[in-house]
């Protein structure tokens, strides 16, 4: 093993050390300190600005150690040494957060890896249902009584890699050193999570998430994180219909929300000739989140984090709920309700924007329109293939051109076995489809509990059959054109609600002059997922692999889990609308494209965000009436949509 691999392994193994024991040891230290009148962090929360400041101090010190060392490896050894020095007197979760921030933002030649959450914090992502024993089931139901329908979405909220996605995003976009457009991204990334959550609720005929934005009201649904989370000595249960602790929080929250709404109505964040909507979205998001670019003097600075902590601290026994940590918050129903309230603020601000006139800067491209037998939008130019049926011995791009371009340009490919001949005259085939299949699978979390007891929990996760998208587009321009291809998905019943559209992908495509091109895109290349696509969470960086310690092959951990790229749908088949929009890349591109990780949620590492359009474009503004969203798509040559069914098999 090279020195680079050796130090990377050492840091990997620090993350892999069991945290519950560390928390227990630290608690002894904290009690000793308290006995002599000294205060130490009792419970670390990324949502507490003071805690973030402490973590930031440490991560900055780590970075300084590397930058001042003779070599990078020497610097990283000094980081490990410093970590060990701080360990006995620093809250382990705080110290881990500091190390995560350092590793994530480290851009030396040594590619550092952070293990999967299944390795770093397995007890925090164990299913709340435990191992299904009657004792655990009774205990849980006693706490979560009154919310049987919410329990049906435990698989979604408790998905280990979805929790990891949320936690990692908050490490990439940390509060004290905000990245470009962080406030806007804060709103957008959480809106996308909500859109996906709401799609799952729609599938289960559960009403969309309602905002919890009034602390005077009790929180209806309780949450019991599960037996091993408790064994981790970390989180507390919350009983149903629990009111928040009496005190300042309750009245403060209403005052702060009123202040926000008044500022929105007063036009504090309105677009002006001098300040565009990206800057204003960033200011509003930065102030609400908060991060260091928050507007000064606003009472509601940190409204979002304030809510997390207040809700997590809603019990009387002095312990905290899962809402206090980015690693666990999304497990709780109230996380989504609180964030719906945050999203409503974003939405209120967006309603003050004028609808786009998409004709002004649309590239001269053509996506053809049609309807299916039910009269629903069905562009023949959006073709979906099952990846497993793609022909071999030929690239997918070549296959797409042969199967769907040329002489087949005017052929309808709904749900057929497309055939063509390759250059050698041999037949090639591909099964197109109107239905994508998802399926529930099971994974196992294994770890050694406090006291050396081996534990194993099965958890369910959704996955889908790999699919490929082929887009037929005609360039009407006599010069070469580069377009940004934006792909979205929405439950058919919510297609007129712009906040419900799920971003599936965003990428560039070159079109030759007047070319009729078939663009190919695999689901594994999606801009919203982390790369490489993890098809099985059990194989997700759960063992140190020195062959990956190579900056050229650097793995980037940001992004939505691949296995959750598609909503689960229903067993009978649930209708969704797939939409593609082509925009002019000459206008869009602001910087280098990402070569790994999620472009959509993290941009390009250490570069400006590569898309100059507001996040979520074109769904970031109200649509013109009476055309609405469907009418706008139908009336634009650079947009098209089609219905597609997602079926859980």
């Amino acid at each position, binding site marked *: 093993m090279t020195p680079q691999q050796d130090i990377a392994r050492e840091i990997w193994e620090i993350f892999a050390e069991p945290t519950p024991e560390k928390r227990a040891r630290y608690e002894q230290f904290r009690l000793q300190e308290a006995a002599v009148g000294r205060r130490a962090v009792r419970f670390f929360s990324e949502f507490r600005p003071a805690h973030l400041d402490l973590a930031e101090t440490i991560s900055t010190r780590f970075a300084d150690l590397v930058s001042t060392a003779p070599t990078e490896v020497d610097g990283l050894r000094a980081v490990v040494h410093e970590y060990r020095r701080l360990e006995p007197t620093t809250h382990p979760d705080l110290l881990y957060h500091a190390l995560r921030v350092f590793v994530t933002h480290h851009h030396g030649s040594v590619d550092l890896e952070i293990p999967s959450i299944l390795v770093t914090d397995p007890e925090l992502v164990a299913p709340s249902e435990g191992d299904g024993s009657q004792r655990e089931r009774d205990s849980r139901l006693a706490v979560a009584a009154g919310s049987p329908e919410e329990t049906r979405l435990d698989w979604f909220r408790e998905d280990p890699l979805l929790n990891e996605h949320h936690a990692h995003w908050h490490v990439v976009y940390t509060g004290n050193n905000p990245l470009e457009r962080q406030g806007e991204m804060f709103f957008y990334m959480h809106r996308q999570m909500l859109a996906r959550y709401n799609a799952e609720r729609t599938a289960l005929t559960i009403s969309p998430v309602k905002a919890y934005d009034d602390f005077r009201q009790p929180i209806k649904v309780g949450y019991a994180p599960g037996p091993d989370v408790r064994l981790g000595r970390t989180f507390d249960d919350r009983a149903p219909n629990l009111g928040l602790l009496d005190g300042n929080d309750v009245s403060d929250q209403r005052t702060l929300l009123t202040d926000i709404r008044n500022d929105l109505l007063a036009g504090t964040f309105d677009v002006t000739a001098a300040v565009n909507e990206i800057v204003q979205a960033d200011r509003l998001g930065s102030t609400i989140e908060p991060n260091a670019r928050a507007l000064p003097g606003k009472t509601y600075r940190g409204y979002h984090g304030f809510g997390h902590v207040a809700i997590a601290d809603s019990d009387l026994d002095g312990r905290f709920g899962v809402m206090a940590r980015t690693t666990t918050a999304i497990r709780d129903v109230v996380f989504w309700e609180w964030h719906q309230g945050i999203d409503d603020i974003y939405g209120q601000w967006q309603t003050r924007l004028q609808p786009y006139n998409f004709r002004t800067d649309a590239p001269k491209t*053509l996506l*053809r*329109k*049609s*309807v299916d*037998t039910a*009269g629903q939008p069905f*562009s*023949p*130019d959006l073709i979906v293939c099952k990846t497993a049926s793609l022909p071999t011995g030929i690239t997918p*791009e*070549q296959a797409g*051109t042969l199967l769907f*371009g040329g002489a087949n340009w*005017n*052929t*309808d490919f709904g749900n057929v076995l497309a055939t063509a001949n390759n250059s050698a005259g041999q037949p090639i085939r591909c099964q197109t489809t109107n239905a994508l299949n998802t399926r529930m699978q099971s994974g196992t979390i294994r770890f050694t509990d406090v006291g050396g007891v081996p534990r194993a929990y099965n958890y369910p996760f959704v996955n889908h059959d790999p699919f490929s998208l082929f887009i037929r587009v005609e360039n009407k321009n*006599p*010069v*070469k*054109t*580069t377009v940004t291809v934006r792909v979205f998905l929405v439950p058919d019943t919510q297609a007129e609600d712009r906040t419900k559209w799920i971003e599936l992908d965003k990428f560039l495509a070159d079109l*030759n*002059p007047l*070319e009729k*091109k078939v663009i190919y895109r695999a689901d594994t290349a999606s801009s919203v997922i982390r790369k490489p696509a993890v098809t099985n969470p059990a194989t997700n960086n759960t063992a140190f692999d020195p062959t990956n310690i190579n900056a050229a092959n650097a793995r980037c951990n940001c992004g939505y889990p691949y296995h959750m790229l598609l909503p689960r749908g229903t067993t009978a088949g649930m209708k969704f609308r797939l939409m593609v929009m082509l925009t002019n890349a000459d206008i869009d591109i602001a910087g280098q494209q990402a070569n790994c990780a999620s472009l959509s949620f993290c941009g390009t590492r250490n570069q400006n965000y590569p898309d100059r359009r507001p996040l979520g474009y074109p769904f970031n503004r109200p649509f013109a009436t*009476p*055309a*609405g969203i469907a*009418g706008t798509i*139908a*009336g634009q*040559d650079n947009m098209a949509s089609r219905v597609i069914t997602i079926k859980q098999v």
Partner: protein
Amino acid sequence: MLHLHTPPQHPALPGFRLALRQAMISAGDLPAWTETYSDNPNALLELIVDERIVLELSVNQPAPAPARLVGLLHRPAVPTWRQQASRAGQLSVRFLSALFIAFFPKCPFCWAAYMSYLGATGVVSVQYQPWLIWVLAGLLAINVGVLYWTRHRHGLGPFWLCLAGAALVITNRLWLNEPALLWLGAGCLLVGSLWNSLSQKMTDSIRYWGGVIGIAPHPNHHA
């Protein structure tokens, strides 16, 4: 390509789309069209085939049966000479304006290149001064130097072309005095300078069209 122009809330629109789909399938066509919307809610729904309105529906009229639409889909559409001339004119104007913008000198170096070209070839009418040849030589040197400096844009092709052109022009002015060589050198300078002033996208487009008409490698769609 068929086109619908309609108010988006036209009552017959959903039924019309379905009927159109069925009609196109019956006619053996791919059921596909484009749509644009009228802001006037009382406007007619118009079906346009080859830029001619073949059917109009008021807001009170129901969608026609697919069989009726089938007959409208394949109207012979022979464009008149006026339409052909108009299209050709529109294309030419767009193409020429794009070329003008592409070649318009946008920086001091471009001005230097153009002026050196015009001066060296004698297009600019000035009284002859013996020292002028060295001014022109200086401008040509700047032009060639800039082409080398910006070689990351289009490689060394424009540089070598202009260097050859400059050498021809200067040697011709000083010693040979052969008009054909002068124009050959001027041609090299012109092509090299224009080549370098094109955007990468324009170069790609020209290369693409060159492939289509057979004077460059054929564009490989499958690459």
